[in-house]
Each structure stands twice: as structure tokens, then as C-alpha cells.
């Protein structure tokens, strides 16, 4: 792992070539052997490493990226969150034909934005095999917040098995990886812990799950991950340095294929300044959840002489990614408890109506009760939230306010409802009950403003990513609504986003849980009209 980090740094430095605002970057997709937590597997690397090299671009730069495929299967790279021409977006079958073995494809685009982004493979399950890396686009004008140094924190989930085999296992038996199912002893415990009148509730709740043929312990599809910070395991302990008195910008990217994280740095308040590469009104938090494919930039002010654990707990609490902020390499700080494994509540599976607006602020009272709550009350929608400490501020979508209003504030011309659906038993996922392979494209008209309303009818959270077009999150902030490339929707939740259709061509639109996208929760969006 150490040597791989060194490789990353070398590759990175060779890429930083400050000259004219037009640079050429050369990337090679290749197989590599990787040993993580004692198990050696074949993965797929970018320039020999995973994460691949940081692309540090400048706003206004004309970017040329040559991507050479040395695999024996097709590959591709997609620039996640970058607004560019449809042909440069890197989705095989939609943007282009993919990159055949032995071929080099040249991507050209102008970086007309700034912030923290990432790039990743969009072919087969290569993203899970290691094909992802950070992008930083430096703004033409300095960001409206101060910092003295920065670190990229790219979070990942490395599977200790082939992701193709994992999918085949899920097709055979959808609970193949769930070793946290409820037992008769759990029932006995809940029964004996319940007061007289509540004992029937315990039974009713079990029966309700059984009637629906759903499992409240079904929080993640696959287990067996090592969670990584910048390619390093918790034992490796990635080290980020600071000097006394410095403000440190941490650019968090969730590049995991299947894992949501809850991020905190015990002892430090984090001031969130960017979400999905977009500046927001700074908000101070103790913890933030990061959906797959989202990015959050935070500023921290570590104290001299202290070390701090950067702690990213996997949503199902099966493990964590960890690094350390310190003045000296190799320092360690206390590692927090993971906390209990969350369970879905019946409320989360009721007729969904809660939006992120109903999310408690994290100082949420009674999260513990909620995990056993089946009354279908106003808390529905975040039933899978783990118990949180009292008085801790946890970021929610309600906290996101754009720093400056965006130009297009028209009311939407029309609404498109997308029900997020799936068949857990068969392990396939869909939109409006139709898999990608059986669905025609969604059609948006050039120049219109479309409201997309997601209704999550499944028991899993889905991070929906629209390529090529920004989604303005409808979170009650009006003109200051934040724009995002990836919006996560909790079980039972309904959430809307307004899209200005200002790009032409065909775009991918999908759940960013890799196995969900691969099994059907995916659509092609065709923009009708506009100059091609």
C-alpha cells in the first residue's frame, strides 16, 4: 500500500505542469496486483495506482486527456460532475463506443467550472476494481474562503473478491452477504424488553416485515470490504500533515462503489464550504453523511500539538475508513466507536412522504427509539439513520445553501416523476419498475426547465447522478438552492430537483451504487433540439 501511495504522488506531481491554460494528460488503464488486508487480488489501475493520479486543472483550461487501454476488455473514463460536450462524457453506448483494448481515446474539454470532482471508469464494474481518481479544478478567482493547505480525502471500498462474482452471488441469493439477519433470540430479547402492551407491537412488527417479504437488516447488498482513505487501510493510517495555526481544506470524495459513509473528525468542527464542487454558505458541523459519488469540502482548524482521526464509518457499521491529521507523519489519535448497526424501520417503508426537510438536525432526539419505530410518523424517511450522539450537529440537505444564486430561477415547465424501484429478491433495480435494458430514453427539451421528482419506493438509499446537467436541489432554499451532480434519496423519501436543460446530446442518468446501475437503475436522457 505504501508503495502505491508513492506511485500516486509521483504520477500526481508529473501531472502538475503550470504553463499555458492548455495541458495534455496521459492516462493508462491497466490491470494491477493489489494486496489489501493480506489478500492479493487483480484490480484495474490508472497509471498503475488506485486511486489514480490527481488531475489538477485550472478553470478556463483547455484540457486534453489521452486515455490508453491496456486491458483485454473495453474501458472508459467519465469526468464526474464536469460540464462538457456529450461526446466527451465517457459513457460507452451513450457518449461514445468505449475504448477498445490497445486503443487510445482523446478527451477534449474546457474546464468551465472549479471545485472538487472526480473521474472513474464507466465500463462493466471497473470502478469497483479500482478505476477512480480525484479532480481538482482551481478557480480563476480565489475561493471565497481562506485556507493554508489542502488534502484530498478520497474514500473507497475495496472488495475482497471479484465484483462480478459478488453480483452473481446476489442473483443466486439476494441475502448472500447478510449475516446480520434477525434471529429467534433477537425476537426473544425484543419481547422480554417490551412492556406489556408493546409486546404485541414486537410481534406485529415482525409480521409486517414478513408480509412484505422484506428484511429490516438489509442495509447493504455486499459485505467484505476494506474501507480506504486515499488507497490506504485503517491500519496503514493515511497521514495528512498540518503546521500549527493552519486552516486545512479537506476535499472529501466518496468514490466507493457501494458504500455510504458518515464522516467525523473527533475534536474538530468542520466548516463545510463546498458540496459537489459548488460553493455553499459555510456551515459548521460535527459530522456529515456522504453519499456515493458526492463531494464535500470542509475547512478545519487543528490545534498545535494535537492529532486527529479522520473517521469515515460505513453506513452499515461493518467497518470504517481512517486517516490522521497531525504535525508529524505516522501519528495516531483515538479511534471512535463504530456504534450499533442500523436497522430499517417500518416507518421508512411506509408511504414515503418525508423529505430531507423532515430530517432532524442530528441533535435528533430519540434516534434509538426510531430504529424500533413502526408508527409511520413524521420521521419517516430516515429510518436507517444510526443512533447519534446528543448535541452533535450533523449536516443535512436542509443546510445546503448556494453561496451565490444561479442564473436560471425559472419555475419548472413540467415535472417528471421517477419512482426508484427494484426487486430485492431477484436482485435487480429499476426506474418506474422498468430496467434500463427494457426502457427507452427520457426526453428533455433543450432550453426547458424540468422538475425531476424522485420517489424512493425501495428499502435502500439511492444516490442519483445526472450527467451533463446540474440538478438544483429543491430543499426550500428558493433562489439559494444548491446545485448538485448527485442527489441521494432515502427509503420512502420523495425529493425533487430542478434541471435547466442547457446541454445537447445524450446523457447517462443513474443510481451511483454500482451494482444498482449495472442491474437496471439507469436511464439514457436525450436532449431534444438545441444546436448539435
Amino acid at each position: 500500500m505504501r508503495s502505491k501511495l508513492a506511485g500516486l504522488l509521483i504520477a500526481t506531481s508529473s501531472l502538475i505542469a503550470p504553463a499555458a491554460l492548455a495541458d495534455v494528460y496521459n492516462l493508462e488503464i491497466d490491470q494491477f496486483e493489489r494486496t489489501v488486508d493480506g489478500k492479493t487480488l487483480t484490480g484495474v489501475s490508472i497509471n498503475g495506482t488506485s486511486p489514480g493520479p490527481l488531475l489538477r486543472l485550472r478553470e478556463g483550461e483547455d484540457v486534453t486527456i489521452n486515455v490508453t487501454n491496456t486491458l483485454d476488455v473495453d474501458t472508459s473514463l467519465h469526468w464526474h460532475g464536469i460540464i462538457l460536450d456529450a461526446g466527451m462524457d465517457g459513457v460507452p453506448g451513450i457518449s461514445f463506443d468505449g475504448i477498445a483494448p490497445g486503443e487510445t481515446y482523446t478527451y477534449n474539454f474546457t474546464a468551465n467550472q472549479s471545485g472538487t470532482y472526480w473521474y472513474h471508469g464507466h465500463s462493466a464494474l471497473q470502478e469497483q476494481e479500482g478505476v477512480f481518481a480525484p479532480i481538482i479544478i482551481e478557480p480563476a478567482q480565489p475561493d471565497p474562503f481562506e485556507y493554508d493547505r489542502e488534502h484530498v480525502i478520497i474514500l473507497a471500498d475495496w472488495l475482497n473478491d471479484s465484483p462480478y462474482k459478488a453480483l452473481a452471488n446476489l442473483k443466486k441469493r439476494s441475502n448472500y452477504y447478510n449475516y446480520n439477519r434477525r434471529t429467534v433470540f433477537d425476537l426473544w430479547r425484543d419481547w422480554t424488553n417490551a412492556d406489556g402492551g408493546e409486546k404485541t407491537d414486537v410481534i406485529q412488527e415482525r409480521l409486517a416485515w414478513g408480509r412484505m417479504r422484506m428484511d429490516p437488516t438489509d442495509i447493504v447488498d455486499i459485505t467484505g470490504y476494506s474501507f480506504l482513505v486515499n488507497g490506504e487501510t485503517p491500519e496503514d493510517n493515511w497521514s495528512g500533515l498540518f503546521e500549527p495555526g493552519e486552516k486545512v481544506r479537506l476535499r472529501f470524495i466518496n468514490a466507493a462503489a457501494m458504500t455510504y459513509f458518515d464522516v467525523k473528525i473527533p475534536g474538530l468542527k468542520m466548516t463545510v464550504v463546498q458540496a459537489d464542487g459548488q460553493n455553499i454558505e459555510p456551515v459548521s458541523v460535527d459530522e456529515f453523511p456522504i453519499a456515493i459519488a458526492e463531494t464535500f469540502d470542509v475547512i478545519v482548524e487543528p490545534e498545535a500539538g494535537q492529532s486527529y482521526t479522520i473517521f469515515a464509518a460505513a453506513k452499515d457499521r461493518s467497518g470504517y475508513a481512517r486517516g490522521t491529521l497531525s504535525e508529524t507523519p505516522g501519528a495516531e489519535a483515538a479511534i471512535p466507536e463504530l456504534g450499533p448497526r442500523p436497522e430499517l424501520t417500518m416507518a421508512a417503508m411506509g408511504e414515503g412522504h418525508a423529505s430531507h426537510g423532515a430530517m432532524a438536525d442530528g441533535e435528533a432526539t430519540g434516534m434509538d427509539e426510531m430504529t424500533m419505530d413502526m408508527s409511520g410518523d413524521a420521521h419517516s424517511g430516515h429510518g436507517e439513520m444510526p443512533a447519534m450522539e446528543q448535541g452533535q450537529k450533523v449536516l443535512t440537505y436542509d443546510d445546503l445553501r448556494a453561496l451565490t444564486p444561479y442564473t436560471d430561477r425559472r419555475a419548472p415547465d413540467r415535472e417528471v416523476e421517477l419512482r426508484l424501484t427494484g426487486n430485492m429478491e431477484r436482485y435487480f433495480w429499476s426506474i418506474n419498475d422498468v430496467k434500463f435494458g427494457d426502457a427507452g430514453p427520457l426526453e428533455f427539451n433543450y432550453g426547458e426547465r424540468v422538475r425531476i421528482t424522485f420517489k424512493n419506493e425501495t428499502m435502500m438509499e439511492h444516490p442519483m447522478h445526472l450527467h451533463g446537467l446540474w440538478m438544483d436541489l429543491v430543499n426550500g432554499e428558493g433562489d439559494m438552492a444548491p446545485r448538485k451532480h448527485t442527489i441521494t434519496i432515502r427509503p420512502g423519501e420523495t425529493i425533487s430537483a430542478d434541471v435547466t436543460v442547457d446541454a445537447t446530446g445524450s446523457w447517462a442518468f443513474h443510481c451511483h451504487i454500482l451494482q444498482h446501475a449495472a442491474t437496471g437503475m439507469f436511464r439514457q436522457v436525450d436532449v431534444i433540439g438545441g444546436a448539435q
Partner: protein
Amino acid sequence: MKPNFLIVGALAMATALPALATEGDPVYNYTLIEADIAEIDDETVGAFDAQGWVGGDYNRFWWKTEGEFADGDFEDAEVQALYSRYISKFWDAQIGVRYDLEPKGETYGVIGLQGLAPYFFEVDAAAFVSSSGDVSARFEATGELLFTQRLILEPGIALDFYAEDDPSRQIGSGLATAEYSAQLRYEFTREFAPYVELAYEEAYGDTADFQRLETGSADDTVFKVGLRTMF
């Protein structure tokens, strides 16, 4: 019903699968095998029960086989080849053929329903028509009770029905036999799960009378030791 027609039909459906499976429906497969031995009347009886499928999410070729052997000879053995079609979230409709190798060669047409009933009961219900026109049906259901994540109790029920009496096979019409079972398995892995199973078999109606004449008893309790594997 012409058995040859059924066989040809099933094969045609099976070979048509790859074409059906190309459009966004990649091909996967599944196999589940249970094999066990028991001591019945001082005789060691072995049994196997296996099924699996090949196909996509909507269209599958589904096969099933089960049999019993004692002293190296098969007493019962059958195979089924079915086209299985996804009809609703938890259910597949199945159509195809069954062939009995033992006790005597016989071909049947099969139509069935397989899936997951509320409360997580795995259900397999099928009706059979033999080449000579005899109609029968089978209903099987199993549930799951977890003691731990790996120690799992699986209660089961299997019912056999016949439309008409068939004295040559010691079968009476209506509910002929039922098996109530409890399998306790330990899943070292999903793929490797040894088990013990207690099964109570009982005959009903005329079938019970036939059995009492033959053996003096219409029920039996069997203790089995076996291995379950899936891949």
C-alpha cells in the same frame, strides 16, 4: 398430451433463451443440492433433491431432480426441465416436462408456480399430467427460523395429490401422502451446509390403506443426515 411434443417444446424454449437474454438481461445461474442418508427398516437409504436455473431476471431454464436409492439401486428418480417466466415480483410460472426414471419410465407435462409467499415461505406448486392421462399435483413449502446467522431451522411441508385411484402404484385419490420435516443446518458458508433432518411421513385415504396392507403402517419417522450446497 403427447410427451414427445412436450420434450421438443421445452428444448425449443431452452435454446431460445440466449436470444431472450441478450437485451439487458445477462445470463446467471443457480444450483442448490441437498443429499442425505437415513436408516429405514435396517436399510441405508440415500436421497437427493436438487434444482437450479440458467437465465436472466425474467426468463429462465429451470431444472429439478430428486431421487431415493437403497443398496445401490434407485427406487425413485425423476428429472424436470422447465421454462420459468417471471410473472410478478415474487413469483415465476413454470411449464415443461418431467420424466420418471424409477420406479418405471413415465413422462409428464408440468405446469407450476414457484416463488416466495408472504412471511418468507418458499413455495413450489406443480400439476402433472402423465402420458397416460393421470393427473397429480405436488405442493411444497419451506420456511426459515434463524437461531444464529449460521444455525438455521427450516420447517417444511410436502403434499402429494392424485386425481384418481391407481391400485397398481398403491395410490388413492385426493391427498395421498404428506411429509412434515424440520431441517437443522449449519451454514459454514452459503455453499457448504451440513444438516440433520427429522421427517414425518404420513399417508392418507386409500393410499394409507394400501400402505397398511403392504407394510402394516401408514406413517414413518425418518432421521436424515445430509449436506446442502449452493453455487
